[in-house]
């Protein structure tokens, strides 16, 4: 079989590295095209993988393993399941769009190279089945992002980049300790050093150890997502990144956190995930409300999106820790959806910025009368983000809240308030920016064909998934079911014996 996953993981990164070695005579204007082409190839491969993916199966598919550093028990192991599937597809969709929509003129060579490396890091993080590899890829995302942010970002991009890097790195520090602790506890029990998550899933440990390691893992993921109160890097990072990077940051990289929770927290520490779920749920709910309220007071659009992401990621985390099939499926679906509409929002912000050189709501007004198409598309995206039924944001949100309501009623009740508040800040901002009349009556060009072409795929996805979310859900559900049944089986086995699981 064609090595889909290997191609997906390595293609962009390798080409990205090669680009660094291109001679300086290579014409600068071709780099962007090259970047788009490579990421489109990636998209095609991802689509082919999507077609190959068997529905109704819960486990990993297309698994391949290569023993990388046998001394440390490290293998290079790839595999895809319903949870990672659409995150990979999401990355494959967003990268060509982001690169195509980029307007960076400075040093396009490095820009494209870093973007492609970032794609490898993102896709790799979703596809690897080995904790070491995951950590490697998880960390690797920081470097291109750091450079993109500091070199092509806004005036304070450098500082935001450092803040972002250090903050997330701090989380990773705990993650690494957690990984090692887990591996060596497993080693102590079985005498086998391995980083394979499949093998480590059945590690026996004391509940205290489980909880501590769970927290070590979680802190990294909560920072990455971000979840209240570990979010303060995100407004700075989102607002100071070049739009292209912000798309990836908000669209794809935030999902690394929630993906990590499902893949690692739930599968490796089912006990602790449940016993400490209330803590994370509370943070999630606090984030939903806090993010929305703070967004309402925000006047910078990118920062507003950052706070809204805080709120939305809160929803996703809520769905995860509801520990219901509905909530978890909804959360996985919502990860994809959030990526789509956040990316679209950032693209639109980029277009506004290109015209007005500001994203301050107090300096923008009356765009709708000058640019109805932009306003229309913005409205659709905004409504998707608010969670309007019929658009993609709704189904996930509904399932999350429903799933949470079943097991954690009061958290869901507070979470529902996010539905109200999201309308408040979004419409408020929309009114300021698009409605009213521009007091200075400046000209404002509507979207060009190119820009529309950038946005249309996303709008189609927004509407399409809003109506036919089953296309995704039918692939997501079996894997989610497996995750949940694994964790419940495990919790039973934990009290009796390990034999059953091993036999399964």
């Amino acid at each position, binding site marked *: 079989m064609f090595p889909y996953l290997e191609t997906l993981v390595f293609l962009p990164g390798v080409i990205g590295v090669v680009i660094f070695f291109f001679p300086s005579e290579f014409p600068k204007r071709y780099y962007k095209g090259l970047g788009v082409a490579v990421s489109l190839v990636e998209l095609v491969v991802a689509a082919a993988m999507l077609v190959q993916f068997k529905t109704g199966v819960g486990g990993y598919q297309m698994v391949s393993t290569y023993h990388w550093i046998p001394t440390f028990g490290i293998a290079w192991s790839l595999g895809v399941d319903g949870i990672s599937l659409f995150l990979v597809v999401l990355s494959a969709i967003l990268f060509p769009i982001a690169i195509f929509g980029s307007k960076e003129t400075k040093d396009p060579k490095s820009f494209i190279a870093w973007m492609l490396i970032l794609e490898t890091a993102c896709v790799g993080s979703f596809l690897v089945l080995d904790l070491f590899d995951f950590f490697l890829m998880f960390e690797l995302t920081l470097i291109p992002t750091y450079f993109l942010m500091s070199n092509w970002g806004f005036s304070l991009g450098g500082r935001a980049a450092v803040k972002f890097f*250090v*903050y997330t790195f701090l989380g990773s520090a705990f993650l690494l300790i957690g990984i090692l602790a887990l591996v060596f506890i497993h080693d102590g029990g079985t005498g086998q050093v391995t980083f394979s998550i499949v093998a480590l899933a059945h590690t026996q440990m004391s509940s205290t150890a489980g909880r501590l390691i769970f927290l070590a893992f979680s802190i990294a993921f909560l920072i990455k997502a971000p979840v209240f*109160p570990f*979010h*303060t890097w995100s*407004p700075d990072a989102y607002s100071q990144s070049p739009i292209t990077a912000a798309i990836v940051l908000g669209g794809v990289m935030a999902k690394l956190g929630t993906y990590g929770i499902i893949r690692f927290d739930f599968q490796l520490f089912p006990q602790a995930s449940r016993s400490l779920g209330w803590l994370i749920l509370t943070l999630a709910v606090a984030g939903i409300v*806090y993010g929305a*309220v*703070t*967004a*309402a*007071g*925000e006047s910078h659009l990118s920062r507003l999106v950052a*706070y809204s992401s805080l709120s939305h990621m809160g929803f996703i985390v809520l769905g995860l820790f509801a520990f*219901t*099939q*509905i909530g978890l*499926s*909804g959360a996985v679906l919502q990860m994809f959806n959030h990526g789509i509409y956040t990316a679209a929002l950032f693209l639109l912000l980029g277009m506004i910025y290109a015209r007005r050189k500001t994203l301050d709501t107090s300096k923008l007004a*009356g765009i*709708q*009368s000058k640019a*109805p198409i932009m306003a229309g598309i913005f409205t659709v995206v905004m*409504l998707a983000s608010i969670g*309007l*039924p*019929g658009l993609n944001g*709704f*189904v996930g949100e*509904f*399932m999350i*809240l*429903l799933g949470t*309501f*079943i097991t954690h009623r009061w958290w*869901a*009740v507070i979470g*529902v*308030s996010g*539905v*109200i508040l999201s*309308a*408040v*800040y979004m*419409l*408020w901002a*929309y*009114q300021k920016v*698009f*409605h*009213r*009349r521009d007091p200075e009556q400046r000209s404002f060009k509507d979207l060009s064909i190119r820009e529309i072409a950038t946005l249309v795929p996303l709008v189609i996805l927004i509407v399409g998934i809003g*109506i*036919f*979310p*089953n296309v995704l*859900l039918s692939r997501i*559900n079996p894997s*989610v*079911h497996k995750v949940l049944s694994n964790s419940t089986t495990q919790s039973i086995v934990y009290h009796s014996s390990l034999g059953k699981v091993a036999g399964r």
Partner: protein
Amino acid sequence: MLSFLPYVVGLPLLGFFVLLFLGRRLGRPAAGIVGSVAVGLAFAGSLFVYSGLVSRPANQRIYVDRLFSWFHSGSLHVNVSLYLDPLSMTMVLFVTGVAFLIHIYSIGYMGHDERFHQFFVYLNLFVFSMLILVVGGSLPLTFLGWEGVGTCSYFLIAFWFERPAAASAGKKAFIVNRIGDAGFLLGSFMVYKYFGSLSYSHIFSQSSGVSHEVATWISLLFFVAAIGKSAQIPLFVWLVDAMEGPTPVSALIHAATMVTAGVFLMARLNPFLALSQTSSMVIAIVGVATALLGATAATSQNDIKKVLAYSTVSQLGFMFLGIGTGAYVAAIFLMVTHAFYKALLFLGAGSVIHGMGDEQNLKKMGALRRFMPITSVTFIVGWLSIAGVPPFSGFWSKGDVLDSAFVKSPILWIFGIVAALLTAYYMGRETYLAFYGPSRWSDPIKPSAHPHESPGVMTYPLIVLAVLALLGGALNLPFGSKIAFLSNWLAPVFASAPSAPQVSSSLEVILGVVDAVVALTGVGLAISLWRSRWDQPALEPKTLQKAYYVDAAYDAAVAVPGTWIARESNQVIDPKVIDGAVKTLTDLVSNTGKLTRRLQNGYVRSYALAVSFGVVVLLGYMLTRASS
């Protein structure tokens, strides 16, 4: 024939897409015609579907059309399915019908607007959403329509978004509605939790299985949704602001159809209400209070549309009174007739505004009957109808509601009667201020304002609606069960309801007479007070003008502190407290660094001292380790 239902729903959607992509190219009036035709065909189609439904025996008049699976996970299966029963059929019919008329009217009314085609884009989308709302086969699908109409309402209120007031009003409507939506969502969750499904056919077949408490919770949560959508106390404030939208919008959305969705929802969920006397009572009380509040506020408004807006609030209150007292049919009956006469009144008001060159202040009108004969006549029909003067439709429908209120509790009835009296009065006041008395519009500043009758495209819908308002009572005349068409038609829907309160025919006659007298009294009062006068501050107290300052209270209690909290959260808590904590940590590091680096003072002796010091410490430690 029933299978034609998806096309009925789909036609406005088709219209929407055609107009969205080709609207600008079609230009005017073609875009308007396309929009109207789409809705017109939908109306025709719904008649066709109706004939299919009515041909079935009464107890089998439920048609479920499962189109495709929307989303599923675990035990949750939500389908996109249409659920047609007499209740939704009624809604489909009057929604498409009234909407068709208003579409036609809009061709004239919006004729000069620069975003003419866009108006129809929104209108068609609205009709589609409204249809989904009424025929949706499961709670999420209803919610889709519910949110869809809300969104269209937002678009249309803010249609003239260059005006800050319009933009704000649109936003306000959406946000206030969202509060209700939260109730809807929570209600749905409760339903799923206790029924394991969200589709109506499943829920209704098992509804008797839940406890009183659960039923109360579910019905109250949905009532929260209804309060938002149908502008009841305490969430009615958005509806008055919504008058910033074009008048056809006010007529269609904020009078005839969307705002009644709450009533529809409660009627749809009657099995739960049937199980919970508590929530029924709550609904009735909220309804009658709203009716009274709306009516009193309407007596003192000077804006021609705001009177109608408060009137709508008040009438919706009547409908909820009906729902709360168990008179579902009466509520639906009132809803339908209200759609006729309120649409008529709004369109009439629109005609006046159109003719007056966008003047809305009643105090600057007067004597318009001479210039706008058709408008004034149809408006008067609307007035008498809403006032409940026999034999206009309002008399019959409102009478039914009040009757059941009387049976339930005379106190409710008394409040209802007072509200009815006021209804007749304030509409009379409006009619007199607009069409009678001296003309006050010859404003030297605006000499161009020259009132004129509206074109045929606007007046014909008025005439049709006037006829409907006059004769709409025929739908459910209280003269024996055979003529009570609506009651029979809707009976299967409300079969689970314990028993609609029955009044003895003699009492019914007495109450009818009382109603008529009250209506006439109101009319007489209006005539006597406003026939020759137009400025009576004593009759227009500030408190009523401001609708008991509820809006201001919201500003003070929610908006101002809300803004403050948001700003504080954004500018103080996030950067100073949370990020501040992070920064404190980083500062701790850098300050430690700054302090420690002072030890590195540059003198080589000091470095040697440090080395020696290290040796001293190490030796000191070894002292503890040395064997004796």
